[in-house]
């Protein structure tokens, strides 16, 4: 515990230092990034200890604010999230060091690093705090610091807009959390989590309400549809290493909150599971559909985060359902898959955002339609991005497959049971569809950006990024591969964690995990076999081609005519069949200037897909309230006589009401 406090101090200290050294960008960089890395390294020690041993570390101090106490607790669940947070933050910090360097003349890097460190510290605080007030404070500081990071380039209008939406969304979400925590500590004198478990509301009629509040409040942060609206705005606006942290771990704190809250609410009811699964399906499928329809690379990634949150929620819902109908195996597999996917998504989404950042860094272009053929200029970035895309599609032998596999098997288990079967089938079909769509989405992202020919000549000469930016991505890619190949051991190591979440005994969990461990071993074996064959095929091909000189030509294309870059298939046309197939959800706007006449002039086609929920749900809502309140503006006319009249009328009416 002391170590964690120590690392927290390091975060804050280095943040403040870099803030004061803001005038000297180099020092600020060193301070900020170095502090993050060091703090993370120190914090990793207790986290991993707790995670492997399952022992719980606590820290208790009294605190002089209402309902508050400075009590921290590091159990397996916290430790797991802590691990994820620290790893990704440290890696992103290394990356950001170089990434921010270009801004040194326009921006105060010190401030940026200050907020970055505060963000990391507050995330750590969120997952280890064991008191409502402490949690809420850490939570809000997290939101605020990330807001300031998002509005790093506040001279751009879209960035300001994005920051605004983010701030509003997160604040309203937090309001729900206030109510949630107060309900949990109903008539308690303290918001300590122990009180929640002890007295709390579980069993009373408020339990369902509390659960709903948690889903809305934490869902806003996690990006459940339809509360995800801030996500596709904020992530593209932020600097890439920040987007990586936000999308990789910050939104996961919402998931953590849900897990935590469930542990307070006692035995869940079936409809909770159904609700979560419904949310998961919506977020998953719609998220990836919207991702598919985007032109902006980072926006696409943001929507895909919504999708992955959907997958995580599917697992969560499955687990809750398992607890509700007393099917521990469901709980184990569902929660296990969900948690593992949290880690996996942190890895590959971080990798992808860093890759997108590299593209942005090298070309200054975010619009997929204008990019192409980058892999020949930046082979490292291209390859790493490919690995990330491969993993996020959930394809073996990388890590994405493992977590989805767990959830799949869990759903299979549920298929036979009477009142779980329908939702299980939903999960199965949904996951399969998501897999297909994700494949479509990321073949598009990778293929159009990195392959083929550049679709329009980039402004600046494209160059491969420096090692200091390459290394972090490399580490993440290795992580993806490692989890993919070491899955059986990792799963069995997750036993205490799952026990913490499900409240089952270690041995029972072992029994249930046995269901999955053997298959995972075989999958590992098969993956190795796959790699073996691949290697041998490579050798074979080299052998076959040895001595022969492979011919070089332009793309053959059945020898039609000499292809040009403008003739390539664009991202929109690549996605078009699918977007039209689901046009009902996407509501894509099109402006077409079709070619006319014998010698047509320039023809053009513009498509834009805005967020349906933002446009159809939230805008009308807010405008409604706005208009309603503007009705009151006649009150203030500026005539003193009228004002005195108000006073008089108020008084008289009160008197009459009182004396009648």
């Amino acid at each position: 515990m002391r170590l964690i406090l120590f690392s927290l101090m390091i975060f804050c200290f280095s943040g403040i230092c870099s803030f004061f050294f803001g005038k000297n960008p180099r020092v600020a960089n060193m301070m900020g990034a170095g502090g993050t890395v060091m703090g993370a390294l120190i914090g990793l020690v207790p986290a991993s200890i707790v995670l492997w041993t399952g022992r719980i570390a606590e820290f208790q101090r009294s605190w002089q604010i209402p309902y508050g106490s400075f009590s921290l607790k590091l159990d397996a669940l916290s430790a797991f999230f802590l691990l994820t947070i620290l790893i990704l933050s440290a890696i992103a910090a290394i990356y950001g060091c170089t990434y921010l360097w270009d801004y040194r003349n326009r921006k105060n890097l010190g401030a940026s690093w200050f907020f970055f460190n505060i963000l990391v510290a507050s995330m750590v605080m969120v997952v280890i705090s064991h008191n409502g007030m402490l949690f809420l404070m850490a939570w809000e500081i997290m939101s605020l610091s990330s807001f300031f990071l998002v509005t790093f380039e506040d001279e751009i209008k879209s960035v300001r807009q994005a920051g605004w939406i983010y701030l509003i969304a997160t604040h309203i979400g937090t309001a729900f959390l206030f109510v949630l925590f107060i309900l949990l500590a109903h008539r308690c004198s303290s918001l300590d989590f122990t009180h929640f478990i002890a007295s709390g509301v579980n069993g009373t009629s408020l339990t369902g309400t509390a659960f709903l509040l948690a889903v809305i409040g934490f869902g806003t942060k996690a990006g459940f549809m339809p509360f995800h609206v801030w996500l596709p705005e904020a992530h593209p606006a932020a600097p890439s290493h920040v987007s990586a942290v936000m999308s990789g771990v910050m939104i996961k704190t919402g998931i953590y909150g849900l897990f935590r809250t469930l542990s307070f609410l006692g035995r869940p009811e079936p409809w909770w599971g159904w609700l979560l699964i419904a949310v998961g399906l919506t977020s998953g499928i719609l998220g990836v559909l919207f991702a598919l329809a985007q032109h902006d690379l980072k926006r696409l990634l943001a929507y895909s985060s919504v999708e992955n949150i959907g997958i995580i929620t599917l697992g969560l819902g499955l687990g809750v359902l398992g607890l509700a109908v007393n099917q521990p195996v469901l709980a184990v597999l569902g929660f296990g898959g969900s948690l593992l996917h949290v880690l996996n998504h942190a890895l590959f989404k971080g990798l992808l955002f860093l890759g997108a950042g590299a593209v942005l860094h090298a070309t200054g272009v975010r619009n997929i339609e204008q990019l192409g053929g980058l892999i020949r200029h930046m082979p490292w970035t291209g390859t790493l991005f490919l690995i990330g895309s491969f993993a996020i599609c959930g394809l073996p032998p990388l890590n994405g497959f493992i977590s989805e596999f767990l959830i799949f098997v869990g759903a299979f288990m549920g298929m036979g049971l009477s009142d779980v079967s329908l939702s299980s089938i939903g999960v199965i079909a949904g996951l399969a569809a998501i897999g297909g769509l994700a494949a479509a989405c990321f073949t598009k992202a990778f293929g159009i950006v990195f392959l083929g020919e550049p679709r329009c000549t980039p402004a600046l000469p494209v160059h491969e990024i420096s090692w200091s930016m390459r290394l972090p991505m490399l580490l993440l890619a290795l992580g993806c591969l490692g989890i993919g190949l070491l899955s059986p051991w990792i799963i069995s190591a997750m036993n205490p964690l799952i026990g913490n979440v499900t409240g089952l005994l270690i041995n029972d969990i072992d029994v249930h995990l046995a269901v999955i461990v053997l298959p995972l071993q075989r999958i590992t074996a098969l993956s190795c076999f796959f790699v073996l064959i691949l290697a041998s095929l490579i050798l074979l091909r080299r052998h076959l081609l040895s001595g022969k000189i492979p011919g070089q030509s332009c793309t053959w294309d059945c020898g039609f005519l000499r292809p040009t870059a403008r003739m390539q298939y664009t991202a929109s046309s690549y996605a078009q069949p699918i977007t039209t197939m689901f046009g009902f959800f996407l509501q894509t706007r099109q402006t077409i200037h079709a070619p006319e006449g014998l010698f047509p002039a320039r023809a053009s086609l513009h498509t834009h897909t805005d967020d349906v929920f933002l446009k159809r749900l939230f805008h009308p809502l807010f405008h409604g309230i706005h208009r309603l309140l503007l009705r009151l503006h006649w009150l203030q006319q500026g005539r003193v006589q009228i004002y005195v009249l108000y006073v008089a009328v108020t008084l008289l009416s009160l008197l009459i009401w009182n004396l009648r």
Partner: protein
Amino acid sequence: MILALIFLPIAAALAVFGLKSATAIRVVLTTAAIGHAVLTVLAWILPPAPVMDGWLLLDAPGLLFLSITSALFAMVSLYVLGYLQRENWGKRQDFQEDFLFTNSRESAFVGCLLLFLAMMTLVTVSQHFGLIWVAVEATTLASAPLIYFHRHRRSLEATWKYIMICSVGIALALLGNFFLAVAATLAENDHVPMLVSSLTAKASLLHVPWLKAAFLFLLVGYGTKLGLAPMHTWLPDAHSESPSVISALLSGALLNCAFLAILRIQQVLLAAGLSLFGQNLLLGFGLFSMIVAAAFMLRQLDFKRMLAYSSVEHVGILSLAVGLGANAGYGAMLHAVNHSLTKGMLFLVAGNILAVYQTKSIREVRGVTRVLPFSGALWVMGFLAITGSPPFGTFLSELVILKSALDQGRFVIAAAYLLILCIIFVAMASVVLSMAQGEPGELPAGSRNHPSLLFPRESLLAVIPPLLLGVAVLVLGIYIPPFLQHVLEQAARTFGMV
């Protein structure tokens, strides 16, 4: 000692009226402010004895509000030094309608400032309803010239409205006092003295209908001063047209005094077993004020007016909290402290922005964080504090209020409260962010700060006081010192809440 608290500023004021040289005036002002603050601190350490057979006495709420006033005044007087320096005293052009105007004499300004302080102190320490009334009315009269410091049309209009509406309200309060006296009449030639203590002691003997009527009159009367909707109408005008320092005092200290006056009568009602009658009224007024404030903060064009309306909102929160009673009372006391500090800070920062941009229109202010990094940061920080985001003190108080509402099972009220707070957050966020961020346009000539340079400078006197206030709010959000805690609880208990 209490007398010293009151008469020190008065003496200073008289001295200032006599003085000519600017430096001397400023010296007197600072010394008076510091002296007052020191005396207040002493009052914390050794509680002063009651004076004038209990007419003047410093109980917990009095001490609380006195210290708020004193602290705020100290900060303001610091700020005023810089302010008076940068004010140019000759004829000059108005930036909205370009007619020429001058300021009123510095001596008059400072003198009235000191008198204002004295009268507010009197409100906090006096236990006699008549005396409270006199003091409150006196604050009005003392502050009127302050609002009319810049002698031009708009400020004159604001002053006129301020005098007119407040005087009417105060007159009604006077009648309320008479009603109270009637209620306190026991028999021919025998009645309870108008002291809070004795009224509470003999509360059971009071005549209920008259007491209720008296409460209504006092509520409306002092409510006008407090800025409860729909009697709040003078507030935005006065706050937006007066110099920022004065606005800071008006909403930071004056509102509290009026609030205290209402709490006193509520105290009597409580003793008479009528507390629900008062609480429900306060609840209603509170919610209505919040709604009105929210309505006017949406699409607000003038940032000082926006701050003024936010004062209306927080007054609403305060009376809502008192209406809820129970633990919310503690929240109310805490919130009074937080709000005063935060709002003072915000108005002072607004003064800095106004000084550089020469406009109060939200549309024309861009990129404050570039032009005035410190003020910009404080501006955003103050916004977060005033909207009750953690880790600022307002968050604690608002959460306490919310919790007691929910614990009492008044879910509708809690929901409305949260909803309005969210709406106000949205409104303020869009205003403050649009001002703080973005590319600053070209500034009026003669401003030292240039958007081009990455780290522009600001004068210390303009930054230190709001910074201190902000730090105070921040600290109150993280740690409530035991002595303050103790006084807060006592104050809440005085009004029968905890």
